[in-house]
Each structure stands twice: as structure tokens, then as C-alpha cells.
């Protein structure tokens, strides 16, 4: 009874520590972003008042936006605003960053990333289960393709897909057609490099599981080959795959940045590229912070969930 209670206490302490370090990292990221905004050349007053702004006009804007207060006060306001989802003002557009990012742009990017995620989740296990343990020419071809997909530039994959499916075969439109039709090619483009890496990892996991004694036992018990791979192999492969979830989400986001540009889609990626071109630091930083927050959140969930997939890791966590 007491043993169970201590184990639970250790478990909740571990959860607290994991959550705590994620929050600490997020706070550090925000602080660095704030410092970068203030130390980097170019400022919001010049952007808002234009070249012709005289001293009194500059002072008025500075006062209006609280830029004449001590840095530490500004930092406090920055943190408070951030908690309300307010990311400050764009240097170039003079609008609130949250207005520029949230809304249609964010939704468009989330749709694209979600589509890509679905493709990854469907393609990866199927490829891994079908090729695990095989050494024939077909398996060699598949692993060659995976390696190429993981090594090719995303924008090039996108352009090749456009040329093949939109221009030559004329089966999928790029600019016309329904929203769903327009999602297919960019979704696959973002997904391919990620699926290429993940299916190598998952296949390795399945192969390692199939080599273990329990696989022989399961076969002897009458578990069919397909069932063995899917039920037992995939569960074992899930642990190395989930530890890569943070990386996968990062790739999903960076993939959309470039792919939106290739397919001429509106979204956070297009906003980011335009902001980098215009040296609009608050917007670029906001997107980077958003990506970091997603990464930290996903890793937090993975840290908490992995012991549920593989109970053996609970012991190691102590």
C-alpha cells in the first residue's frame, strides 16, 4: 500500500518536473525574444512615423506605445500581453502581430500541416510493416526512396510533384479546383521528407521487436505474421517514433514555410518569408516563438505519454 503511494508520489513529482522545465524553457524563449527585439537594429517608432517623423512626433508615438518607460517595465508588460495572446506591433505593417498571424493565415497553415500529418501517420506504419525484415530488391528500392525523400529539398519535391501531377498528368490542379484538391499536393510535399525519416526508424523498431524471443513465442502460440507485425512490432516501434515527435512537428512547420511559398498558398510561411524580406523582426520572432511553443508542448506530451506505451521506462525514469 505504502509502496504504491510512494510510486504515485514519484510519478507526480516527475510530471511536475517535466512540466516545470517546459514552462521554464518557454519563459526563457520569450525573454530572449524580448531582448532581441530591443537590441536589434530598426525600431517600431521609425517604422510607424516614417522618415519624416520629427522629434515630437516620435516622442508621442513612444509614449503612446509605452516605449519611453524603463526596460524592466516594458518587459513586464510584454509578458502580460503575451499571456493575453498579444505579440506586440509589426515594424512594417504598423498592425498588431496577433492580427497578422491569427485568423485565416494560421488556419491555412494548420490545415496544411494537419493534412501532411495524416499522410505521415498513414504512410509510415504501412511502409515499415510491409518492408520490415525483408532484404530483397523491392525493400532496397523502398529504403532508397525513403533516403531520397529525406534528403531532397522540400521545395524541389513540391515543384516536381506540380510538374508531374498538375502539368503532365493533369490530375490535380494547383490553383483551381476545390480546397481539398488544392491541399493534396502540398500536403504530400510536406509529408514526404518526414515519412522518409520516420519509416526508417519505425522499421528498425519493428525488426528489433521481431528478433526478440517473445516474437517466437507469439508465433508458436499461433499469432499470424501480419498480426505479429502490426500488434506487437508496431507497439515496440512506437517508442523510438514518439521520441521523434518533437522533431516531426518542427519539420512539419518548417516544411509548410517553404511549401506555402512553392504552391502560392497564404499562411504563416508566406507571412514569415515576407516579414524576413522586410526585416520585420516582431512578426518573424512571433512565428518562431509559436513554433517553439508547439515543439515544447509536443515534447511535454511525449515525455508524459511514453511511459504509458512502454511501462519498462517508468523504472528508468526514477
Amino acid at each position, binding site marked *: 500500500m505504502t509502496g504504491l503511494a510512494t510510486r504515485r508520489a514519484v510519478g507526480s513529482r516527475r510530471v511536475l518536473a517535466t512540466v516545470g522545465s517546459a514552462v521554464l524553457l518557454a519563459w526563457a524563449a520569450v525573454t530572449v525574444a524580448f531582448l532581441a527585439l530591443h537590441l536589434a537594429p530598426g525600431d517600431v517608432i521609425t517604422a510607424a512615423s516614417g522618415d519624416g517623423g520629427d522629434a515630437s512626433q516620435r516622442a508621442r508615438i513612444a509614449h503612446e506605445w509605452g516605449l519611453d518607460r524603463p526596460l524592466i517595465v516594458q518587459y513586464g508588460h510584454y509578458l502580460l500581453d503575451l499571456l493575453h495572446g498579444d505579440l506586440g506591433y509589426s515594424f512594417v505593417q504598423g498592425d498588431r502581430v496577433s492580427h497578422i498571424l491569427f485568423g485565416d493565415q494560421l488556419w491555412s497553415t494548420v490545415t496544411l500541416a494537419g493534412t501532411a500529418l495524416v499522410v505521415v501517420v498513414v504512410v509510415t506504419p504501412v511502409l515499415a510493416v510491409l518492408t520490415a525484415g525483408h532484404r530483397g530488391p523491392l525493400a532496397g528500392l523502398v529504403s532508397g526512396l525513403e533516403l531520397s525523400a529525406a534528403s531532397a529539398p522540400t521545395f524541389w519535391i513540391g*515543384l516536381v510533384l506540380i510538374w508531374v501531377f498538375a502539368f503532365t498528368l493533369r490530375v490535380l490542379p494547383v490553383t483551381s479546383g476545390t480546397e481539398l484538391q488544392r491541399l493534396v499536393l502540398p500536403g504530400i510535399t510536406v509529408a514526404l521528407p518526414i515519412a522518409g525519416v520516420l519509416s526508417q526508424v519505425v522499421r528498425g523498431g519493428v525488426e528489433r521487436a521481431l528478433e526478440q524471443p517473445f*516474437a517466437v513465442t507469439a508465433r508458436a502460440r499461433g499469432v499470424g505474421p501480419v498480426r505479429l507485425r502490426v500488434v506487437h512490432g508496431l507497439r515496440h516501434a512506437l517508442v523510438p517514433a514518439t521520441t521523434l515527435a518533437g522533431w516531426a512537428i518542427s519539420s512539419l*512547420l518548417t516544411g509548410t514555410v517553404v511549401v506555402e511559398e512553392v504552391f502560392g498558398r497564404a499562411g504563416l510561411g508566406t507571412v514569415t518569408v515576407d516579414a524576413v524580406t522586410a526585416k520585420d523582426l516582431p512578426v518573424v520572432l512571433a512565428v518562431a516563438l509559436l513554433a517553439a511553443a508547439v515543439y515544447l508542448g509536443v515534447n511535454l506530451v511525449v515525455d508524459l505519454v511514453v511511459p504509458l506505451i512502454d511501462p519498462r521506462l517508468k523504472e528508468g525514469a526514477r
Partner: protein
Amino acid sequence: MSAVPLVHSRPSPRTRRLPLAPAVAGLVLAAVTLAALSPSVVAPGDPLHIDLVQMHAHPSLRHPFGCDQLGRDVWTRVVHGTRQSLAIGAAATALAVVIGVPLGLLAGLGNRVADTLLSRVFDLMGAFPEILLALVLIAITGRGTGNVVLAIGIAAAPRFARVMRTDTRLVARADHVLAARLLTRSRTRIVLRHILSNAVGALPVLVTLGLGTSILGAAALSFLGFGTQPPTPEWGSMLAESRDDLRIAWWAVFFPGVAVTATVVATTVLGRTAQRRFENRVSA
């Protein structure tokens, strides 16, 4: 598929296939290096020569990769672009090593406070996707080849620092370091001779794999218009220049991408082969 017995001892794992892939990868990298060092040997033409008569010319014997929207020979431009792409990748990787290795060593050798602090910095940088981190740096410094090197190098540094930290910790606990300490060797000597020399063992693998990643990142930034500016041939910016004419001249887009992919695949294959060797040696 169902005819294949599932539970079996694996027949001599990949003894036949193993040497072929690294050999091909080595050949590709040798060719790429040759093209980077002396492009005129491989492609004697002028990569900037404009010939509007040859605009969008199909691939032929005279122009194996065809011609682009200004009638420039794509083969010549791909070959001459090698130097730029490879140099950016190599310089960025070198920068990442120069920043990452000392920081990782410091974290590995330092006391708990220094280690925690530095590790948190690595975690913090690692939380940002590398390309986005690089884009933030470019938003501050502005576009240009040098700034791309800087951005990619800094963004990749935590990768090297983390591995160095772990390996330094491992080596510092080894018996031979204890022995050296008992022999009252100076601290500098122990760090340089006994710890650093052993902890950098994983570095060649990391550098080889990192080179591919840097080349990919540089190509992406150039494609977005932040790196090498036209008309200088570079794989990423060539793609960006020709993408509008994809419908009529696919070759001007296709072949620069093939060059990037082949180079990155080659570095990955070589890096993994070296990694397998290295791990076998360590575990043996």
C-alpha cells in the same frame, strides 16, 4: 508476402549490399568535390553566358541538361553552382563545430551550475526549428551569402554541443582519466590529451551528416531569396529563378534539385557507414 516466413534467423545481414552504397556515395562526393574545386574541367562553358536563341532548349547532346529561360546551359550552371552550395554548407558546418564543440566541452567538464545553464541554452535553441532560427537571424542581419552561413551555422551549433557534452561526460568518468589525475598530470593536459582527444571521436560522423543538413538549409534559404543572389549559379537560387517556367522547361528546375538530393544522400550514406563502424569499434 505471406509466403515469407517471419520468424527466422536473418541470413548473414547485408554482407553483400554494405560495400556498394558507401562506394557509390564516395564516388558522388568525389565528383561533387571535383566540380567544386575546378568546375571548368567538368564543364568548360561559361555559366553566365546568355544565348537567347537557345532559350528553354530541350536537353540534347550539346546541352545535356537543356537551357534555362535566358538560354544559359543548365549543366554548366549546375556544375559551377557546386562550389557555392558546397562552400556555404562546409563553412556553416565549420562554424557550428567552432561554436558547438567548445561549449559542449565546457558543459561536460563544468560543475553542475555551468552544465545546467549551458544545457538549458542548448535546449532553448533546440526548441526552435533550425530554419526558423536561421530566418530570425536573417531578419536581423539581412540577406546575403555570408549571413546565410552565419545563420545556418549558429542554428546548427546546439546539435554539436549536445553530443560533445554527453561524450565529454562519459570520457571524463573513464578509468584512464582517473589514472592521469592520480599521476598528477596538469588539468589542461588531462583535458586536451585524455578527454578532448577521446570525446571528439563522434565528430567526423556528425560533421558528415551535418554537412548534408547545412547544404539543404542553405538551398532552402537561397530558394526563398535570402542567400546567393542571381546571376551567380547556386542550386537553390537556380531553382527559384527557373520555377516560373516549370511548365515549359522542367529540366531547369529538375537538375539543380537532383544535384542537391544526390549530394545530401551521399553525405548521409557515408555518415551512417562511419557511424556503424564507429559504434562497432566502441562496443567491441
